[in-house]
């Protein structure tokens, strides 16, 4: 007889509202940033993080006590979030500021936090730092670029497969642990092994509207979100112009030779 599962695990998923990945971005005329008057959605890596948290709950059922989602950014960020915590600041802070805010939020959680799952990077700033910074500030174990996560709530460990340059690495991380998600999951979704990040159904969207959203400010949390790095300008990358077409392989080879590209044994 198995004893009934104890509610053990508290999961926190920080997410970011970013310009939708399909939007062709434009640098603004002042060169201070990009035109943000475009479609925004949840950072795709964070969707995977949310999906992973939900899947952990599906596998472990009652062992998961809570999943809380948090976003830190301008008031509109709350749209990205239909559950749990929203924190207002404008504009979106730097990774170190976000990590400090998350630390302050974790310290407010009476029941503690066992697992934090984040996307490996946001597709706007492409920094890829927040998870590691949070792990450093907390002194917790970290598993970046995770493509497979197995949580054992009783042993309080997570076995994680991570993407490294040239292959894969498996780690065993003690709780509390910070995990950042890679895209391998998506690859597996498409092979039918996992489900794709799911769309919220209308009933769930209605239910989500009733879930509590706690709004906090940087002042309430005692964190300073002043940027430390100064963005001097944002510019368009140089445009490439096509060099025209060739008629056959020989002409192509001639062009390659001209550019200094020859066969390995040539």
């Amino acid at each position, binding site marked *: 007889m198995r004893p009934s599962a104890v509610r053990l695990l508290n999961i926190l998923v920080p997410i970011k509202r970013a310009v939708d990945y399909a939007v*062709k*971005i434009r640098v603004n005329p002042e060169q201070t940033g*990009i035109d943000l008057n475009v479609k925004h959605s949840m950072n*795709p890596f964070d969707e995977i993080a949310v999906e992973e948290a939900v899947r952990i709950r599906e596998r472990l059922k009652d062992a998961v006590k809570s999943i809380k989602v948090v976003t830190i950014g301008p008031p509109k960020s709350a749209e990205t979030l239909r559950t749990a915590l929203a924190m207002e600041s404008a504009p979106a802070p*730097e*990774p*170190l500021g976000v990590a400090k805010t998350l630390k302050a939020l974790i310290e407010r959680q009476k029941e503690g936090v066992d697992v934090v799952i984040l996307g490996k990077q946001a*597709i*706007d700033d*492409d*920094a*890829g*730092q927040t998870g*590691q*910074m949070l*792990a*450093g500030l907390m002194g917790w*174990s*970290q*598993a*970046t670029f995770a493509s497979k996560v197995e949580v054992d709530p009783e042993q309080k460990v997570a076995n994680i497969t991570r*993407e*490294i*340059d*040239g*292959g894969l*690495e*498996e*780690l065993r*991380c*003690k709780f509390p*642990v910070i995990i950042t998600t890679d*895209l391998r999951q998506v*690859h597996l979704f498409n*092979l039918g092994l996992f489900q794709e990040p799911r769309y919220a159904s209308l009933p769930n969207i209605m239910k989500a509207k009733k879930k509590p959203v706690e709004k906090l400010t940087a002042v309430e949390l005692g964190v300073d979100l002043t940027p*430390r*790095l*100064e*963005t*001097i300008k944002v*510019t368009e*990358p140089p445009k*490439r*112009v*096509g*060099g025209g*077409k*060739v*008629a*056959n*392989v020989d*002409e192509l*080879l001639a*062009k*390659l030779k001209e*550019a200094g*590209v020859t*066969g*390995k*044994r040539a």
Partner: protein
Amino acid sequence: MLKARVFSAKQAASPHALVFLEHRQGDLDSASLSALTAASQLGGQVTGLVVGSPEEVPSVVEKAKKLNGLTTLLHCASPQYTTILPETVSPLLEKLLSQNSPFTHVVSAHSSSAKSILPRVAAKLDVPAVSDITSLEHDAASGSTTFTRLIYAGNAISTVRASSSIPIKFFTVRSTAFAAAGAGDAAESEVKALDSVEVSDPPTEHISTSLTKSDRPDLGVAGRVVSGGRALKNAETFQSTLYPLADALGAAVGASRAAVDAGYADNSLQVGQTGKHLAGMKDSKLIVAVNKDPDAPIFQVADVGLVADLFEVVPELVEKLKQ
């Protein structure tokens, strides 16, 4: 001593970079050699750091001490560093960078290992980090460093300045933007051993590593890349068509997101934002496109385009390259 420090704070200390030199099987990673080049461009002293197991470190040090651009080489060996884990390596870096640290910059490749470690250490020291830079300029008078880096998947270039208020500037380097530092001409650097900082009962344990075996160059640093998309039909034709061409050119193999999603190629081969290097292809010196569709968007950026069936053209290309 105290006087000197006050003076240096006013004058802005001349830059002194600490470069985290990564290695695998006794060889320095070429991405780390690009990081060393970037560090040299700061215009000050450059110290290298080699961390690893007692078996690996001596042979890596032999090679690293000959690198051009290094003034000092620090090394630290411990069985605990056999696998580089952020939880065990960070305390060593923190110790090195606190208490009267001479270092003004911490530099590494934008590798999976270094990008796991550097932000962790930076946060502990309460300084920001700059990821995947493509150029840099240090102003010795003000002690500020200006970096460029790509944002929004390479669709915009951001220029950011880290002022002297950031005492230690952390940054990772896009290897394709800097040539790899060479070895040989310069005087050997001064070599110093460091005591390891052992972590008792580390929260993370390494279980296993499995590397994809390949004789081809690594996608992130390769001089040439042969990349395939959905038109390759399946995993078998992807390999049988592209691999001979890659081998004939001494090139790495890449894959589009579509080819990866369809299972033709491993995720590690993906070129583009979510894969190996952000929009890396657009920075290439020469883009060659083969596509059946004369209106394919790739022809708008390709330097050389050929409208043809790749299954006919690629084998012909391989044959003629071998001649």
